Every structure is written in structure tokens, then in C-alpha cells.
């Protein structure tokens, strides 16, 4: 191995180590007892314990938070992809009345600060009886995820030459059949990458999710604020809960890693 390549490797390893240190610290804490955490600084758990995790896995008020978060995130990913795929196709293939304005208007919703929408959303979903349901949070997250999905997908779709569409029509494919059987498989990577980003932004958002839920659909992030009890903060359980929030994301990135590695140029904006 030549010198520049080695220094490159060292640099990236150093970066990743720095990046993972805070996460390691959380992991480290999650295996400690509260006495050890508050007793002084230890670089690894000296009294290794799984108690913090046991608390979370045995208490329904804890683990239901994960189930709630995963439910509304899944619903959101499905809705977003279902509506964004045809729309992105339209933007990538056709010119139509007001297309540019519509595109910017969509994007402008990605720019809307969630804080702006807190109260109106609360009132809107309360008035139609969806307050504290998974579907309410999933719909609310569409506000920023649908525009993002259309944006990313459109770039991928532009990379597919229109000759494919025309050939399929000559072969007698109807539009829906062409779209599902021919077109979607061609942009698999794009769908994977989009699903990843949509999942990510819905999973990490808390402000809207917390405002639109009370008990039945409460996300894990909101439940975590409850560790601040009468006896101070339960650091160990808090850390364990934090560690567990990283797992679903890791699974998703594992599935899409090859799509991201394949690369995307994302057309014009």
C-alpha cells in the first residue's frame, strides 16, 4: 500500500472513531448501574448489568413507545412512496400546467419549520378525531417527507431514458403495468435510497409526533422524558432507551447500503 492511501485510511478511521465516541459513551452507560454512573468516570462498565434493558423490555409503558414509533414510521413510508412515485414520474417525464410552481410549492413544505404547524396540526387532527393515533403522526410527517421523496425520486427517474417507456408501449404494455413491471424495477436503488431518507426523517422527528399524541400512540422519544422522576434522572435506563432507538435505523441502513454505494447523481434540481 502506498503512503497517500495509508494516510487516507488513518484519517477515515480517526473520523469514525471520533464519530462513534459519543455513541460508545451512551452504550457504556447503558450497562452501568446508576451508582457507578454517578460514582465517577469509568471507561467501561465495571459492574456490568443488563438491568436497564430489563426495565425497558418488561415495562409496557416503555416498549410500547418503540412499537408506536415503528408503526407510524412504517405507515408514513408506505403512504409517502405510494403518492410520491407517480408524482415524481410525472415531473420527470411531462411538462404540464404549473409544473415548476407546483414543484417549488412542494419543496416549500419541506422548508416549513414544524414549530409553525404545531398548534394548527393539533387542532386539525383533534377536530377530525385522529388525535393520539398512529395515522395522525404518519400524515403529519408527510408534510416534509412527501416533498423530499418526490425530489429524490425525480432525480433517479430522469436517469432512465424515455426510450424504455416508448418501447414498453409499443410492446403493448398499459401504463400501470409498465410502471409496476418495467419502470419500478429499473429504479430500485432510487426507491431504496428514498425509503431510507423517508424512514430516517420520520424516525428522528419528535416535535410533531409528541404534540399529536398523548398515550396510545406516544413515540419513544416522548416516553424518554419521563425518566426524570422524583429521585432525579435515571441515567442508566435513559441510556439504554437511547441505545435501543438506534437499532431500527441500523437495520434499515444495512438493507439499503448497496443502493447508496451504487451512487446517485440526482439529475438537475
Amino acid at each position, binding site marked *: 500500500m502506498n503512503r497517500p492511501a495509508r494516510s487516507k485510511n488513518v484519517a477515515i478511521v480517526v473520523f469514525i472513531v471520533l464519530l462513534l465516541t459519543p455513541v460508545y459513551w451512551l452504550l457504556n452507560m447503558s450497562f452501568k448501574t446508576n451508582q457507578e454512573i454517578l460514582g465517577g468516570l469509568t471507561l467501561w462498565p465495571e459492574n456490568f448489568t443488563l438491568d436497564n434493558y430489563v426495565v425497558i423490555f418488561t415495562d409496557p409503558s416503555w416498549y410500547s413507545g418503540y412499537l408506536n414509533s415503528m408503526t407510524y414510521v412504517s405507515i408514513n413510508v408506505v403512504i409517502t412512496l405510494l403518492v410520491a412515485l407517480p408524482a415524481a*414520474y410525472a415531473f420527470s417525464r411531462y411538462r404540464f400546467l404549473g409544473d415548476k410552481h407546483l414543484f417549488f410549492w*412542494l419543496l416549500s413544505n419541506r422548508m416549513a*419549520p414544524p414549530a409553525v404547524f404545531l*398548534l394548527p396540526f393539533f387542532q386539525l387532527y383533534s377536530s377530525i378525531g385522529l388525535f393520539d393515533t398512529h395515522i395522525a403522526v404518519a400524515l403529519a410527517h408527510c408534510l416534509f417527507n412527501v416533498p423530499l421523496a418526490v425530489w429524490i425520486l425525480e432525480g433517479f427517474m430522469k436517469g432512465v431514458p424515455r426510450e424504455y417507456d416508448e418501447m414498453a408501449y409499443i410492446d403493448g404494455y398499459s401504463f400501470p403495468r409498465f410502471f409496476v413491471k418495467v419502470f419500478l424495477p429499473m429504479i430500485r436503488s432510487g426507491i431504496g435510497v428514498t425509503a431510507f431518507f423517508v424512514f430516517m426523517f420520520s424516525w428522528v422527528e419528535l416535535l410533531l409526533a409528541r404534540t399529536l399524541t398523548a398515550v396510545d400512540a406516544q413515540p419513544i422519544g416522548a416516553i424518554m422524558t419521563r425518566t426524570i422522576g422524583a429521585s432525579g434522572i435515571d441515567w442508566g435506563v435513559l441510556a439504554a432507551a437511547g441505545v435501543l432507538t*438506534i437499532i431500527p435505523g441500523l437495520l434499515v441502513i444495512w438493507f439499503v447500503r448497496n443502493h447508496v454505494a451504487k451512487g446517485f447523481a440526482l439529475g438537475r434540481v
Partner: protein
Amino acid sequence: MDRIPDNRAWWLVLPVFLLVAFSALIPLMTVVNYSVQDIFGPGQAYFVGTEWFREVLTDQRLQDSLLRQFLFSGAVLLIQIPLGIGVALLMPKSGIKGSLCLILVAIPLLIPWNVVGTIWQIFARGDIGLFGWGVNQLGVDYNYTGNTVDAWLTVLLMDVWHWTPLVALLCYSGLRAIPEAFYQAAEIDRASRWAVFRYIQLPRLKSVLVIAVLLRFMDSFMIYSEPFVLTGGGPGSSTTFLSQTLTTMAVGQFDLGRAAAFSLVYFLIVLLISWLFFTAITHADKDT
């Protein structure tokens, strides 16, 4: 690629249009409605015209948090974009090492924002956090809950830690889309490393960089959960950014009219800057 003019394409965008109209237009109209009224209770609202807007635009507290917000977003972009490109260039091109890097680098992105706050709240503490303890051991008097500069640096560091991976990931994907032939041509021409970056990689990264810059600008401008958990906006109000000021006003003080007017001004600022950026890029595209 030339696009075919066909208005029937509207049928394909209709679901998106309806969905986004439902979740954006209705709430936005509610905000507009609040912003011109003074509301004392159900059925007791009075039309006040532009009074709230005038009040909001001259409010010292809001101007301060707007200034802080610009400083923060500017710093975020200046640090994260170059750093992200650098990291993307360093990451292994393919194979198991590439995949591993990809996954490890993506980890901060997958953590819920309030947990990011929690992680740094612990990590930066002088007594039980590695970072805070380490800095104190170096002889620097560091305390992010008491000192304004320390609080700012911690929030900034947290955001760099949290979001540089997004820039890196987008750029990495952009780099992978460059055909190998470009590099071979550069090698034949004996182009320097810098020339390869400047004339091959950077132009090809443009579209992903636009996405990265826009996303980073929008999201840093709306930042809420992370500093809220980490510093609670303090010490004083030194790390209170726009979203937090707004949320305190709307939910904490239930000052609906003022909060709504503030919301609209806030939204318009984001929109205006993004639009300027967006047009600048599209125009630059046409010139080349």
C-alpha cells in the same frame, strides 16, 4: 431530456397535491387566521389587522434569536459542507470496507433528535461525560450549562457531529456515480489530485451538493429538539433559536396571535432564502 407537454400528468401528481394540501394548506390558513386576530377564548376573537406583525417585527427578543439563528446556520454550513466532502473523498470506494464505513458514518443520522440532545447532555458533562471530563482534564475551564461560549461551541459541535454524515453520505453517493473513464482520462493527462477534484469531482457533485446545502440550511434553521434537550436554550437565552422562541410563545404562553404572525414571518424568511438559492443554482445551470 426534453419533457413532453401533457396536462394529463396532473392525474399523477393529484394524490401528492391533495395530501400536501391537506397537511399544509389547512394548517397554514389557520395560522393566517390567527395572525390577524386577538383571541381571548372560544368565540371571543377580534380582528386586529397587522398589529401582531408590527409587534413581532419590532420585538427585540425575536430579533436577537433571528440573529443567533443566522449565525448558527452560517457556521453550520461553513463547517459541515467542506468537512462532509472531505470525509466522502476519504471513504473506501467499494467492498466490505466501503459498506462498513457507510453504516458507521450514518449512525448519528439515525438517532432521534431528542436522544442526540441526551447523548451530548451526558457526553459533555464535566462529572459523568467523557468529553466534558476530558476537556476539564486538559486544564480548560469548560462548563456548557454556565458559560455562553461553551454552550455555543457544544451546540455547534453536536450539530457537526449529527449532520456532517448526511453531507458525507450524499457526496459519497455522488462520487460513486462518476464513471471510471473520467479518472482514467485524468491519469493519462497526468492531472494532479487537486485538478481531479476541481475539474472532475466537484462539478459532478454539484447536484448532490445543492441538496445537501438546502437540506442543511432548512434543518439548521428549524433546529429545536437538540439544543432544547442539551441546554434548554441557556445559559440565559444564548442558545435559544427561532423554533424554540416560537414554541415557547405558542405552547408555553399560548400567545396565539403573536405566535402566528411570528410563524408566518419565520416561514417567509426560510422560503425567501431557499428560493434565492434555488434560482441562483438553476440560473447557473443554464449558463453552462
